[in-house]
Each structure stands twice: as structure tokens, then as C-alpha cells.
């Protein structure tokens, strides 16, 4: 196990290095530069343009810039945003908990509904329930987030008035963030009603962001279950007289879970992409929106730092998923 972990880490390091290069080159290959965008329609003289680029260090040959950047990174410095003049790491740390909170709730909703739906659909293959779930999954899978989010807002907030339109908590609650997770902070604040306000603000965005993974999980669970249910050991278990709950819940599900866990792990990456749109619609102060803004402003340090941090997190999650396989099914041995 330890050897396996070590081996994985050895792969992660060059990957991380690769990401720094990709992030660095990616943002610089985009046409236009931050100075140009700042000046807007007014424009500025070529001399002033050169002067500003020089002040920001963007005039140096790209390889030297990259070298300096790596040196900076090695010292644990992710750079400073050229727009807000704030350290990138600090901005990321302020916004990231919001994205995590939203994504966790989304994946929770997705698993909580997607998994049982897929299981039941598999055990009742061909039934009305099965068809309904599969049609629902297909619809959910192909739903554009932007449109879906707005639709839910108009229906639940606009017409029914059940949920707030957007934001993380009602503006009447005002407390200093402690953990950055609104659900936790609202409880810590001790203000009556704060927690339920935070929950009511979270329901719609988490459902919207969870729709896509939910559909994928339901479909994946169903097909994995179907495969496992036709295995010999399931027939044996049934022949031994075990009840359907034990057969499905223990013997079948455990094996069916392997591909499902993989899919859930992969969905984390998808969540990051979905979060950009969800955060924009629901005025959710997370890293997705921040990354997009930084790209539009050509805020090189922010984009580089943000991509790097997100990539690092995704890599760590994938590593955890790999380790999780072994826990779910001890028969899986990581070759050392």
C-alpha cells in the first residue's frame, strides 16, 4: 500500500510540473494582454503599453518568465493578481470553500438520488420505473446548466416564492467567515435563522449542479448492477436462499460500486466545469466564476495559480478514489 502510494506520488509530481507549463503557456497564447484590456476603447500609446508590460515583467522572454514563475512557486508563492493586487492563494482560499460546499452538496444529492434510482431500475429492468429513470437521466444529462438554473429560479423563487433567488445567505445575516463554509459558519454565528437561510440558498444551486452527475450515476449504477446481477455468485447466493435485500444490497452492490466510484471520482472534474456556470447564475462566490473573470481580464498570475491549485486538488481526489477501491473491495490489490 505504501509503495503504491509512493509510486502514485512519483507520477503526480511531473504531472503537476506539466500543469504549470500548460497553465503558463495557455493564458499567454490567448490574444490580447491585460494592459490592452484595461485601457479599453481609449487605448494607450505603444510607449506607455511597453512601459506597463515592463513594470509587470511581461516583457521578458517567455522562458525566463516561466523560470521566474517556477522559482516563485518553489518558494510557495502563487503570485499576486495584477488586477486586485491580492495574493492569488489568498483569493483562492477565500473563494474555494464556497465551491467545495456547493460541489459536495451537489454530489451528495446526485449520489443520494442517482444511486438508489439506478439500483431499483436495474432490479426492475424493463419496468415503467426503469424507463422513467432512464428517460429522466437522459434529460438531465443533456440539460444545459444555464437554462436549467434560470428555469428553476423562475419557477421556485419567482412563481412559488419558496427559495431565495441567489446568493449564499440572506443579507440580514452578517458575520465574519470562520471556515468559509456557510452551513458551518451560520451555525457558529449563533444567529437564529441563519442556518436555515443558508440551507434554503443552497438547495437550488446544488440541485442544478447535481443534475448532470446524478444522471451519470444513475445510468452507471444501473448498467453495473445489471452486469453483476447476471454473475454466477449472485445466482449462487440466491440459490443458497439469501433474501433479495442481502443479495442485492451486499453481494451485488459491493461489486457494482467499483465502476460507480470511478464515475463519481471523475464527476469531480466535471463539477468544476459545471460550477463555473452554476456560480455565475446563482451569484455564488466560488472559484469557477473567479477563474473565468481572471481569464477575461488576462490576469496571468490568477489564472496560472487558479489552474494549478484546481489541478492539484483534482489529482489528490483521484488518488483518494484509487485508494478507496481497496477499501471497498479488499480483493483489489495495488501491485507494488
Amino acid at each position, binding site marked *: 500500500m505504501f509503495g503504491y502510494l509512493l509510486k502514485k506520488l512519483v507520477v503526480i509530481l511531473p504531472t503537476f510540473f506539466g500543469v504549470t507549463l500548460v497553465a503558463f503557456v495557455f493564458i499567454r497564447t490567448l*490574444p490580447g494582454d491585460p494592459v490592452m*484590456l484595461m485601457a479599453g476603447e481609449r487605448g494607450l500609446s505603444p510607449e506607455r503599453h511597453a512601459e506597463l508590460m515592463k513594470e509587470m515583467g511581461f516583457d521578458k522572454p517567455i522562458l525566463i518568465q516561466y523560470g521566474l514563475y517556477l522559482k516563485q512557486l518553489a518558494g510557495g508563492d502563487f503570485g499576486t493578481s*495584477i488586477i486586485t493586487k491580492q495574493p492569488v492563494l489568498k483569493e483562492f482560499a477565500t*473563494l474555494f470553500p464556497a465551491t467545495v460546499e456547493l460541489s459536495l452538496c451537489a454530489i451528495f444529492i446526485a449520489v443520494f438520488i442517482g444511486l438508489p434510482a439506478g439500483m431499483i431500475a436495474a432490479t426492475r429492468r424493463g419496468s415503467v420505473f426503469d424507463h422513467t429513470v432512464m428517460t429522466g437521466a437522459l434529460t438531465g444529462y443533456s440539460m444545459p446548466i444555464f437554462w436549467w438554473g434560470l428555469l428553476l429560479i423562475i419557477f421556485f423563487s419567482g412563481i412559488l*416564492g419558496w427559495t431565495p433567488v441567489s446568493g449564499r445567505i440572506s443579507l440580514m445575516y452578517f458575520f465574519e467567515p470562520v471556515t468559509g463554509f456557510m452551513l458551518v459558519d451560520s451555525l457558529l454565528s449563533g444567529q437564529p435563522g441563519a442556518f436555515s437561510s443558508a440551507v434554503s440558498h443552497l438547495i437550488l444551486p446544488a440541485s442544478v449542479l447535481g443534475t448532470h452527475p446524478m444522471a451519470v450515476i444513475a445510468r452507471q449504477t444501473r448498467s453495473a448492477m445489471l452486469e453483476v446481477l447476471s454473475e454466477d455468485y449472485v445466482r449462487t447466493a440466491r440459490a443458497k436462499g439469501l433474501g433479495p435485500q442481502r443479495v442485492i444490497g451486499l453481494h451485488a452492490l459491493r461489486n457494482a460500486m467499483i465502476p460507480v466510484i470511478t464515475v463519481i471520482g471523475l464527476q469531480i472534474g466535471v463539477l468544476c466545469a459545471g460550477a463555473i456556470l452554476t456560480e455565475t447564475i446563482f*451569484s455564488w462566490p466560488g472559484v469557477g466564476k473567479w477563474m473565468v473573470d481572471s481569464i477575461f481580464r488576462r490576469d496571468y498570475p490568477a489564472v496560472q495559480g487558479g489552474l494549478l491549485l484546481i489541478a492539484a486538488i483534482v489529482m489528490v481526489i483521484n488518488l483518494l478514489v484509487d485508494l478507496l477501491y481497496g477499501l471497498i473491495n479488499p480483493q483489489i490489490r495495488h501491485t507494488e
Partner: protein
Amino acid sequence: MKKSRKLIAALCGASLLLASASAWAAPKTLVFCSEGSPEGFNPAFYTAGTTFDASSRALFDKLTAFKRGTTEIEPGLAEKWDISADGLEYTFHLRKGVKFHTTANFKPTRDFNADDVIFTFMRQFDKNHPYHKVGGAKYEYFNSMSMPDLIKEIVKVDDYTVKFVLKRQEAPMIANLAMDFASVHSAEYADKMMKAGTPDKVDFEPVGTGPFQFVAYQKDAVIRYQANPNYWRGKTPVDNLVFAITPDPSVRYQKLKANECQVMFNPNPADLEAMKKDPVVNLLQKEGLNVAYLAYNTSIAPFDNPKVRKALNMAINKQAILEAVYQGSGKIAKNPIPPTIWSYNDAVVDDAYDPATAKKMLADAGVKDLKMKVWAMPVQRPYMPNARRTAEMIQADFAAVGVTVEIVSYEWAEYLKRSKEKDRDGAVILGWTGDNGDPDNFLAVLLGCDAVGNANRAQWCHKPFDELIQKAKVTADPAERTKLYQQAQVIFKDQAPWATIGHSVVFQPVRKEVVDFRIDPFGGNIFYGVDLK
């Protein structure tokens, strides 16, 4: 800061509790659905309206000011000013008894005075000023208004008198000093922070003299202000102001409907019809201080011939563009400045839409089978809701007179860069929103000889026109300046470096409870004086 924020939080919490206990004492909170996060809180560093709304327009004052909802100048922190006969010396007499905000980490010991004005401008002007490099600031607006070349020195005459000495005459100077970059900061606060080793705080935890004072900011979520009880113009009617940062325009509208905010910015054009009918919404509108244009490259044949440009102008059906692109709410532009700016020459006659004559004029000029490019911006701007659609309509119009148009577009930053190039191929759709309400800010910036290869997208340097606007720049008498600018507009129309397209109308939805919100011609959101019923 943290501790004190907690204290404020506790106070706010307590006041909320009190408020619910006794309705008569309920503090009035005005919530504004803004578009995005400010880049920071020092307006001198930035050029974006979102940033100015959150900083200069709420927290700060300038020496001179724009009367709310107009482009007229009125006294600000300077009670009055004198201009020397040669137009080179501006002496400002400062207002007495103006208090800076008292915040968590700053308690002013003195009133606003000349030192604050000197600090504000020397920070931007003097490269050796201890604060010049703090925060890696670039002072782009100060630079782009040519202040470094214009100002010779800034002198403190006494505690309440400051003199700006210029190198050359600059008639728009008074208007320039009402702009956001000229927001006056506290020198005392700056000194204190410098001594404490935290000079950056001046820019992140702002202290001004403005109608609101800063309470807290959570990036991409919310900015909180409270009314400045000591404001020199009198306390604003509401007690708290909150910016709820809401990037999506349709969501802003939903929030407005749900009373999660009372004022919103920049509605989605598609929502306007519904807003007009909405019983809870009051849809305010005002002519924008802007212009959209199609700039030919006048340095390249056949567009170097004014007759060709004129002919092409006559081929464009502007009324159709107004209806299709501006949804009938804008105004056809005939001059390069909007009608809301003084010196607008209403006597100028626009080129008539006349394809037959246009065709003939092109033939007379020897132009046959002309192929050209029309550039369409990739983004929606206040002056131009849909450049692509406009380009397509111009394409069809030009086809009718035998000119083949290829529409090109680039990503926004690239568009701005490439469209400036002197040998650029094609005519560019672009526009402008005024900075200070002065005609010079349109005519010199966009059409002056100095601006060729830069904001002068027509690459048009026409001596008779340039002489007029240069002369107007150094003429102090407004009546005389008006005359010069009106002549300049006649020359402009005759020479036709642009096809002037339109001036847009700005819409701003507010809830019915909102009292006396006035649309700012500069595109800002100003909450001083706004009340809730």
C-alpha cells in the same frame, strides 16, 4: 480589523434585533444588485465602472463634482475656484469642517484640508512619492487624461487653499477634477498606515469623506456600507447600503422582483418588455452619454476620399439599425458627440439614406466592385447592443450599392489592439462613453491628430478640424468654445471619417419603493440622496 469587524457584526446583529423589536426604529437598507466585484477600492488604480460604483461614487468626494444625474459641474470639496487670466493657474478654496470617515482602524484627528489634496494628487503625479508604488498601482486614468504632461506643480498655499499650475491651458481641467481618479484620500490615514507598516490598507480598507462609509466586503458576494452620519452635504436618507453582486442580468431581475434588491444595473435587453409591464418595477431611462460609429480607415484608398465615405454613409439605413439593434429606444447619431453634451450642433444635417445617389457618387468617384471588411465587436457595450447584427445590416445595405462586405471579428482584447493599427484593413464598429461630459473628451480623444494610431480608429488627421479642437482646448470662455466645437462638427460631417450610427438609451429598473434614484449619464450608480418609501 477582524476583531473590529466582529464588533461591527455584533452591533449590526444587535441593531437588527432592536429593529425587529421596534419597527419604528428599523434602519433603512437599500440593496443594489451590481454586476461584478470591484477590482479594488482605490478608484485611482482602475478604469472600470463597477469599481467606481463601489469606491469613488460611494466613499469619496472630489474637488469638483457632477450634479447628480447630470454632466453639470458643481462645487465638491472645493467651495470655489479661481482661474488665472492666462488659464494656467487653478486656485481651489477648500471647504471647511469636512470630516473623514471614522472606521475600525482609523479615527481622524483633524478635518479635511489641503494636505489631503496634495497627498491624493502627488501620489499619482510624483514618481518618488512614498505612496506612488504602493500596491503596484499604475494610475491609468490619471495618465490617460494626460495629467503628467499637463501639471507643472501642485502647491499648498495655506491649509485651505491649493493651487494647480499647468504647463499649458486645458479648458476641461475643472471637469477632469470631478472624475473618479481624482477622489480625495486622507493624508492622515495614509501616514498612520505607513508608520504601522501596512500602507496597503489605504487601498483595501478605504477612508474617504463620501456619503457612505465602508463596512465589509466579501469578494464576489457582497459589499456593505453604512451612511456617513457626518456627511457635509447632509446624511443620506438610508442607513445602510448593500451591493449584492449578481453577475447574470436575468437573475438580477428575478432578485428585483423578489425584493432581494431594490435597484439593479444593466438589464438584459430581452427583459425590457416584461419590466415595462411589471407592477413592482419602475423602468427608468435616459439618453446615454455615448456614441456608436463605423470608422473608415481614412489613410487607405479608396477611403481616403471623403466622397467615397460620404457615399457609403448614404447607403446605410440607420433607422432600420435603430429599430433592429437598439429596439427603437436609441437615437440616430449625426454628430460625433451625443445631444446631451453642450455644444452639440443640432443644425448639422445628417447624410440622407439614399442608395441611388450613393451608387452614383461611388461611380463618379471611380469606385467599382469595391470589396471591404467591416469589423464587428464581439461584445455588447453600453453604446452598441449587438455589433454583429449591425454589421450584417450594413453588409446588406452596402450590397445594394454594389459594395461587397466581409464581416470580421476578433476576441475583444485583440479587437481593440488590431483596430488601432494604422494600416488596418476595413471599417470598424466601435463607440465611446464620455468620461467628464466635455466635448473635448469625444472630439480630441477620438478624432484628434494626436490620437491617430490609437483611439482615433479612422486614422483621421484633418488639419482644419484639429486646429479648431486644439484652439477650443485652450479657450476658457464657454461661449467661444461652443462656437469652435460647433464648427468642428460641421467639418466632421463634411469630411465623414465615420458613419455615425447611434446614441443608446440607458435603462435602469428600480422597485416602485425607490425614491429619487437618478440615472447617471456617465453610466455610474450613485446612491446619495436615494430613499425608500
